[in-house]
């Protein structure tokens, strides 16, 4: 696809805005600052996971009803590796790198043993998640649309039950607690210190940036065009040399890799993971972000993630306050009712999402490549794969 310029600008502005948010809200006082970080980092998780899901559901047209299983796998892999043997991994790195103090440890943050441990965990989580998607995908990706969706739904439930019951590995329903923070100096005295409170947030922004980069690069290549062709017309895709099974697997694996990354970001934020985080509703909310934003639209899904993430977290924090004020207990599940209503309204008035792909392309225009008028059809220039 050739839209980019305008889209790239949009994405860069969004990332810079996210980076500047903690600095801006700092001016509003401690309470507002903490609230903005809480909402912001929650939105980031939705943006990351929705972007991952967008590859599979939005671009390839494969409905996945259990994305939370792959996010959870990433989070659990991280949590178990980091806490194993009394934080042995961090101890291992601590033996290598010199202990830094003062401002130097912020400047050389990448030498922090906790951070190095997190960086070690990421590739493992990604590989495990991709392996799992491969195992699940091999026998099931040939199923036509709806059946595959049911398989993923069932898989997420199985994953949830295994995590909840296999306590020897996963600590059962209590979850993995006391996961080390992203940086060793984040665990200091409990006072409001800029870096300890924002580290996981900036980590989230970095992960989102990686996700966006991967998704955009993928989409603007023959690989992405293959995925889109599989979504739009399977027969045409085949006749143009796209191996449908392979491309479905590709989308599943890219999704699972990015979702695992999202899982590690989730862990860095909460420093805790339990089976409750693997709730089916989370899968549905990720899916809502994609549908709400516009299937396959990178910008739209980003907006969808912000919208649903912010709404969810604001209501989680705001509902008890409202309940207290009016003297009547509003159940927390009300937010799901609200999500449902929003989704219905969007489907009614903007059936293709907030920012559908088609609108993007017309608004964005096409990048101009010079000298196309002189170009000859290259019948034999590019050659073919043997």
């Amino acid at each position, binding site marked *: 696809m050739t839209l980019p310029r305008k889209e790239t600008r949009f994405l860069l502005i969004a990332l810079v805005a996210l980076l500047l948010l903690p600095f801006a809200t700092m001016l509003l006082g401690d309470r507002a600052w903490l609230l903005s970080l809480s909402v912001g980092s929650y939105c980031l998780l939705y943006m990351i996971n929705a972007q991952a899901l967008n590859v599979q559901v939005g671009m390839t047209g494969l409905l996945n009803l259990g994305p939370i299983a792959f996010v959870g796998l990433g989070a659990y892999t991280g949590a178990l590796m980091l806490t194993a043997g009394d934080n042995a991994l961090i101890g291992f790195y601590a033996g290598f790198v010199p202990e830094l103090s003062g401002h130097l440890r912020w400047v050389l943050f990448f030498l922090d043993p906790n951070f190095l441990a997190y960086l070690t965990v990421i590739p493992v989580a990604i590989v495990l998640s991709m392996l799992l998607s491969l195992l699940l995908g091999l026998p099931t990706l040939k199923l036509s649309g709806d059946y595959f969706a049911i398989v993923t739904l069932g898989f997420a439930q199985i994953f949830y039950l295994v995590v909840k019951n296999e306590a020897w590995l996963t600590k059962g329903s209590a979850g993995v607690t006391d996961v080390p923070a992203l940086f060793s100096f984040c665990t200091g005295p409990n006072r409001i210190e800029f870096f300890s409170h924002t580290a996981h947030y900036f980590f989230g922004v970095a992960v989102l940036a990686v996700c966006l980069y991967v998704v955009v690069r993928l989409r603007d290549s023959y690989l992405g065009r293959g995925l889109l062709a599989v979504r739009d017309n399977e027969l045409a*895709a085949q006749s143009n040399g796209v191996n449908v099974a392979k491309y479905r697997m590709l989308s599943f694996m890219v999704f699972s890799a990015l979702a695992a990354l999202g899982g590690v970001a989730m862990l860095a934020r909460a420093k805790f993971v339990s089976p409750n985080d693997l709730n089916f509703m989370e899968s549905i909310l990720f899916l809502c972000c994609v549908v709400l934003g516009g299937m396959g639209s990178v910008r739209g899904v980003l907006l969808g993630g912000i919208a649903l993430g912010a709404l969810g977290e604001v209501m989680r924090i705001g509902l008890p306050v409202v309940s207290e004020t009016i003297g009547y207990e509003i159940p927390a599940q009300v937010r799901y009712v609200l999500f449902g209503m929003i989704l219905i309204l969007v489907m009614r008035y903007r059936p293709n999402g907030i920012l559908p792909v088609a609108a993007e392309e017309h608004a964005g225009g096409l990048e101009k490549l010079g000298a196309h008028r002189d170009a000859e059809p290259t019948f034999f220039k590019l050659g073919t794969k043997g």
Partner: protein
Amino acid sequence: MGAVLELRGLTKHFGGVKAVQSVDMKVEPGSITALIGPNGAGKTTCFNMITGHYVPTAGDLIYRGGEAEERLNGLRADQIAKLRIARTFQNIRLCPEQTVLDNVRIGFHTRSRSAPWQVLLNTPSFRAEEAEMTASARAFLEFVGLDASQETGIEALLADSLPYGDKRLLEIARALASNPSLLLLDEPAAGMNPQETETLMDLIRKVRDHGITVFLIEHDMKLVMEISDYVVVLDHGEKIAEGKPAEVRENPKVVAAYLGQEESDRRSERLTKVKLEESGADPAPETSASGGEATEASPDAVDGPTDEETP
């Protein structure tokens, strides 16, 4: 070098339905070969077997358009596409939600040589390939007669918004973008007005002149008779005739298949009469120049659908 494509005893049964029954034929390199026949004769089924969408019940498909002789049976559609066989569909199959330009670029799929890591790192070689492809895609749009200039901006339109005839041209552009050695066109002129059909005929000739063998299914007899080098006729899944367009047109079996048996008899009668008159003999009261296996025509036999075929 032999025929680009050879069908040997190609057969396809769907349960008890014999869609294609032991068809032998050849498509010579650099030719325009037409496959014709009444509706339901098994033409598209043949195409679907050639492009790997159906698996033949029996018979062989031999293809010599690539480096080596290949047997197409058992290959998947995408593997066959990689052997430089491209096709269009009877019911246009574009990606309606994508732009015109992107639809053409899908056609380059088999020609992309960048590895996934090059895509991910956006290497200069990948970018160069993309730029070359985009330029070439525009050139293909112009080649088929869809003006790709920036002023009209057709390339940025959604494929779905194109008029019917242009969609067919776009599908041909996409097929050509894969640099095919053999191009299969399934009813390219369907739904086109006579003017558009003329343009299409020029385009098909132009494609052939670029060294691409064209194998097409078509109902428009004017198109078939004017541009084909060789015509094969199917009826009820069986090959009933083949040859140069002029020979096929006069073949009584073909006339029978197209116009019904009665009309065929009448025509052969007239023909015999003329011949006998020429030789000075009395016309025989009963003639049977038509196909041997033809059944007795019922009194309410179908009338000829068109006048095209009557001399």
